[in-house]
């Protein structure tokens, strides 16, 4: 079951059926509609916000002399709400004393086209964050591959029952809350944490672990390792045993077997795994924050803090612009990775 999930991104699905009936079209309709509204439109919204600015305006309505007035005034830096009320009344030609205000507030809306948000994404701070995110997620992906490959191989060669139980064991931690698991890691790596207490018992240490780049990468590897193991395991378990036996018969040693047989056959799984680990790693924000003691800010952290304070200095627009850039980086990376896969379905992914 998980193989399918993990195999998702790269080796997706090619089509064989020849004719399309009306029924098939009808069956597709609900999902087509759903994905158009809730997948495609939101992406367009990101693009829209990334290229537009947010402008503030005062929305004022009041009654005077039995008439109702509704008025909008652009919010300038030196214009207060009271000032805006005065102006609104003046514009309507009524004296402030006569007006009864029913509503007066500062509101925001999307304004015109701008490249300012993208420019902000190119600021030194966010460039640095993006570079760090890229490097850390690359490292996390590579380490995951190194760990997952032999593990998946051993798993695929064990007995059927053991395979099934082990699959559950790998998945189980994934089903626990990521925040809680990360919190738990902090306790393990702390200066007086579990590891350092054990080291002290042996008369060693203490070692500073939490707050280092290593801790951040460890957090990524921990959280996403199963996504690397599962697709590799899936392709490896499909390798025909008779092929391996044939290789043995032909006098291949284990290195040749690995290099000339197993590795080429497991490429699609590796590609899937690389993507499945790389994508969430590069965009994470909670893990970096917690594992680095808040000392390392990745691009996900910046997006999060921008969106959190969305109305301060157009945070929402800058956040959308950063998301857009991140999305493009990810698309390019997955596209490049997919080029290395000769799986003919792979090209469809990007």
């Amino acid at each position: 079951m998980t193989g399918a999930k993990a195999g998702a991104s790269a080796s997706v699905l090619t089509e064989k059926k020849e004719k399309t009936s009306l029924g098939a079209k009808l069956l597709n309709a609900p999902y087509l509609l759903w994905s158009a509204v809730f997948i495609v439109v939101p992406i367009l919204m990101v693009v829209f916000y990334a290229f537009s600015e947010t402008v503030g305006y005062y929305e004022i309505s009041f009654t005077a002399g039995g008439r109702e007035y509704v008025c909008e005034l652009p919010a300038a830096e030196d214009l207060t709400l009271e000032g805006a009320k005065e102006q609104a009344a003046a514009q309507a030609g009524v004296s402030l004393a006569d007006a009864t205000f029913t509503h007066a507030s500062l509101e925001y809306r999307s304004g015109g086209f701008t490249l300012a948000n993208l420019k902000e994404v190119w600021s030194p701070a966010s460039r640095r964050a993006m570079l760090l995110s890229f490097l850390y997620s690359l490292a996390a992906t590579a380490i995951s591959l190194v760990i997952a490959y032999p593990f998946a191989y051993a798993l695929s060669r064990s007995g059927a029952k053991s395979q099934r139980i082990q699959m559950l064991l790998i998945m189980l931690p994934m089903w626990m809350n990521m925040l809680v698991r990360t919190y738990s890691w902090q306790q393990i790596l702390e200066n007086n944490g579990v590891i350092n207490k054990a080291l002290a018992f042996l008369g060693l240490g203490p070692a500073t672990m939490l707050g280092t780049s290593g801790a951040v990468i460890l957090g990524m590897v921990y959280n996403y390792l199963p996504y690397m193991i599962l697709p590799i395991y899936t392709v490896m378990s499909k390798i025909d045993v008779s092929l391996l036996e044939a290789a043995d018969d032909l006098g291949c040693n284990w290195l040749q077997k690995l290099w000339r047989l197993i590795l080429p056959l497991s490429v699609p799984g590796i590609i899937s795994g690389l993507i499945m680990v790389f994508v969430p790693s590069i965009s994470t924000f909670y893990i970096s924050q917690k594992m680095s003691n808040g000392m390392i800010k990745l691009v996900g952290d910046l997006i999060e803090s921008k969106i959190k304070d969305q109305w301060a200095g157009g945070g929402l627009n800058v956040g959308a612009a950063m998301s857009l850039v991140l999305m493009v980086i990810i698309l390019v990376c997955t596209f490049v990775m997919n080029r290395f896969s000769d799986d003919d379905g792979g090209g469809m992914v990007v």
Partner: protein
Amino acid sequence: MKKTLSLCLAALLLLPLVFALASCNKALVDVENLEGTYTRDLAGTTLNVYNWAEYISEGAEGTLYVTKAFEKLTGIEVNYSTYESNEVMYSKLKSDAVSYDVIIPSDYMIERLISEGMLLSFDPAAELSNYHYIDEQYKNLYFDAENKYSVPYNVGMVGLIYNTTMVKEAPDSWGALWDEAYKGKILMFNNSRDSFGIAQALVGVDLNSTDKADWDKAAAKLTEQKTLLQGYVMDEVFNKMEDGNAALAPYYAGDFLTMQEINPDLAFVYPKEGVNIFVDSMCIPANARNAEAAKLFINFMLEPEVALANAETICYASPNTGVTGNPEYSLADNEYLYPKDLSAIKTTYFRDLDPSTRKYYEDLWVTITTGN
């Protein structure tokens, strides 16, 4: 055999569901004496309360479950959700994504909300029968000089927490957070305004300055500090100080009490350069849909026994004389929450700053924290 086994397992599976349901009928500490004193006219309506996380008594270990007791008393259904910062609360409010009936922002945020016409104006003194419990010194504060928008809920101050086994001389200055001797054992707020506030106090500029040069000065101080830091933290400060992972950290006085309970080696001081004081107050947004129920709720929160339960849970100073004057209140004599001589401590409120200053220091903060 296998069937029975699966049945047992399925039953086990329902365990969380079962105790989720069981909790509906759990024993509440009733506020029986209030029975009948609250109108049930609004029974069946909904009240959206938006509060800081863990900022109300939730019935842990036999204490009062405030929102449930209110529901029982008035028949009003309470939707309770939480936020982690004033800014998040503000964004949710401003995005028009939701409409809340009761919010509990801090002082400077109330100032901003009022200036943007986002709070409902009412007359607490006349409309809330329990308003007289509010201590006079917390009325007519700068952000609501005429008491038209807010009802104080909690008061707190930032101070310096240190571990007496690691810090030899008791510090009396924020300068301790810049002390080379504690390199790698110093923590700082992972939140721009609080961190800047400390640096500003230390370099002697106004916390509410709109002069960019003042912010630059404080930013330089913060940049200088970064190499000495173990981290920028918020909730992590509890574990770090409790287990002696760090020696010095600024945090809120009330939370220090929670930490000290676990690690008695911890001590607390209000540094001489001055500290930030804050008041979190209950307000009603202008677009609230159930303002009458909101007033009822705020009044309920002011009931001495409700306020007491909250004060004991939250551990912050209470502006409610029904709490501070109550002999049962365990923190009444606490020297950190209720300093004997408050005037000896230099306290400053945060003011709401104009958008360009806000953007300026937020950008500085990003540069400081992303740099190496």
